[in-house]
């Protein structure tokens, strides 16, 4: 397959896929006809091709997807008859921030940082699938340890946790 053909296959797959498409999956799909180098360069090409378009090729949660552009968000919401996506509360964001930078982290450790009970918030975040239990600490009481999920990356439009700034470099005080 030449570069144009590979691009065509990838664009098509991105269009029909409901989840971010991983490079690995694309290589597997075109096994024998395109290697990962060819797939990656085709993806990079596509990203550039879409620069001037009304949709974008976007990296998300370790894969690629077709998505709308932020400047058209208002129209999408109007079309979907939806006011706004449910946003997270300040308390939920604070707990999430501690989980992101300290994972795996226990409830006691989160509460120490915030100086406030957070069992309710943890429960909500679990329900929203933004955090999950990743194990237990090997200390007395064997407390649960929490970490972030793939859904977390998607919610914040992140490709990986490495995209987040270092703790303390975003201080806004």
């Amino acid at each position, binding site marked *: 397959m030449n570069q144009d053909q590979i691009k065509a296959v990838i664009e098509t797959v991105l269009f029909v896929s409901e989840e971010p498409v991983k490079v690995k999956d694309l290589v597997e799909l075109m096994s024998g006809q395109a290697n990962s180098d060819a797939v990656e360069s085709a993806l990079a090409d596509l990203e550039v091709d879409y620069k001037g378009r009304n949709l974008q090729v976007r990296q998300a949660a370790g894969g690629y997807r077709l998505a709308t552009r932020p400047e058209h968000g208002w129209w999408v919401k109007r079309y979907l008859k939806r006011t706004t996506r449910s946003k997270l509360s300040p308390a939920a964001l604070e707990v999430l*921030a501690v989980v992101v930078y300290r994972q795996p982290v226990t409830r006691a450790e989160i509460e120490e940082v915030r100086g406030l009970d957070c069992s309710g918030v943890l429960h909500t975040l679990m329900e929203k699938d933004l955090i999950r239990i990743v194990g237990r600490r090997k200390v007395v009481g064997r407390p649960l340890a929490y970490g972030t999920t793939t859904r977390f990356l998607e919610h914040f439009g992140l490709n990986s946790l490495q995209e987040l700034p270092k703790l303390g470099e975003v201080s806004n005080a």
Partner: protein
Amino acid sequence: MTYKVRLEIFEGPLDLLLHLIRENRVDVCDIPVATITDQYLKYLDLMKVLNIDVAGEYLVMAATLTQIKSRMLLPRSEDGHDEEDPRKELVDQLLEYQRYKGAAEDLRNREEEHEEVFRRALTGESIEVADNTPPEDVSLGQVSLFDLLKAFEQVLGQIGDVGRHEVEVDEMELAERLTFVMKRVGSKGTEFTQMFDEGTRRIEVVATFLAILELIRQRQIRVQQNGIHGAIFIYPIMMERG
């Protein structure tokens, strides 16, 4: 019956402290403990006036502050040894909390930006609608609870001193207040202080304020502030028919 407000939008005693530090324009590392403690306790009083269920952690912090305040008054030992600043532990805690608060702010920005980007919906995926979310998800938008409390305090201040007696809210029907507030807000919104007429009794001010908090929780109104110390405005949230 006494109406108890149970809002989960408090961000905790550390958050209140940071708020006071910022408002007094002082350095976190060199907190004027006496001043900050007084202001902190004043906020707790205000919450009591409103009959807000103050979490135990706020009281623990009040005790800690009072203790630090008294230790600051003790004369330093004379053998020349540098004793540890009694504020150190609290300062460390505040700095640590501040870092995570910054990170939370960063997440908020990312969430807001990403909120405008849409992907193909999963087949049969129902769109998340905001109104069945649990109370933890109450967001005041750009106005913090502390800002609201401050505005409330100013209104109360115009009536008379903030007393320490128990205020019974039972004679006011909350439902009636909710309707009153919604009417005042109208379809275009209004300024916070416009909610309270001159000569309003103290008890009515408290009831109206509680009604405002309740309506925020129910997502019927939202509040917005012009700048850090600017006027606070209340707007209705229009329900779109889905």
